[in-house]
């Protein structure tokens, strides 16, 4: 068990997504993952949010389909998780492919 702190969060407009993965690659803290077993109304996998978002707007700025709304919390939010977060966001971000 560990605690992950999110200083921001996103709203994901799932049905707008075209599954291109660009957001996942862009997220500097690697908190976006694509669905593997579910597709949206257009038949695309789409991203889901894990704890740890920093509200950096990387995803929203790179997303070609305007799927994200980004918020920054006034006070950070803590999430209890079973595993520790990955060491390097960059490596793990690549690992998502």
């Amino acid at each position, binding site marked *: 068990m560990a605690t992950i702190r999110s200083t921001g969060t996103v709203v994901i407009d799932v049905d707008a997504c075209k599954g291109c993965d660009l957001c996942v690659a862009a997220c500097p803290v690697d908190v976006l993952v694509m669905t593997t077993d579910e*597709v949206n*109304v*257009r*038949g695309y996998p789409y991203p889901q949010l894990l704890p740890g978002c920093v509200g950096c707007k990387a995803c929203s700025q790179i997303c070609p389909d305007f799927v994200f709304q980004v918020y920054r919390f006034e006070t950070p939010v803590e999430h209890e998780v079973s595993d520790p977060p990955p060491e390097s966001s960059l490596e793990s971000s690549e690992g998502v492919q």
Partner: protein
Amino acid sequence: MRREVVLTGIGGQGIQLSAQLMARSALASGLFVQVFGSYGGMMRGGNTEATVVVSDEPVVAPPTVERAWSGIVMHHDYSEATLARLRPDSFVVVDSTVFEGELPQDLRRVSRVPATALAIEVGRKQVACTVLLGAFAAITELVPLESLVGALPAALPAYRGKLTELNREALEVGFRAGSDIARRDAVDGASRVAVP
């Protein structure tokens, strides 16, 4: 014997490829075929539609038909005009993963196959229509599976060679799903729609 099949979907689902496979497979059986494909409007992801006419005598028909014997329906977007071309007693196979539209009331039979889901299992969403074609073949027996697979090399552009394998799998997966449906239908006593 003359069979008209209309296919409808959105760009990137493989509609045109499926029409080609069906056509070449029918040609291989010594039938006459005409295909008309419409796709790519102002942008990607737009409507795509195909009309396949298979006949045992040379086809002299306008490129589009308005009384089709059956349909392959991949998506609700833009499907309206195509669905309107179906004869009252026709039947359709539908990609149940994504299709959310209305179908005409008077169809003889509707077969729902989760083609996109199966395609993703196969490894590429883009082969969804090939899955549905496989199912269609199983249900209608219009063309045999082997000749669909045999048509793949000719129908795929040379530079897309690596897709042959994926599509072969998709056809097989779809064919299996279609066979299940056909079997179930037979049990249910639904009327057969295969080529007489």
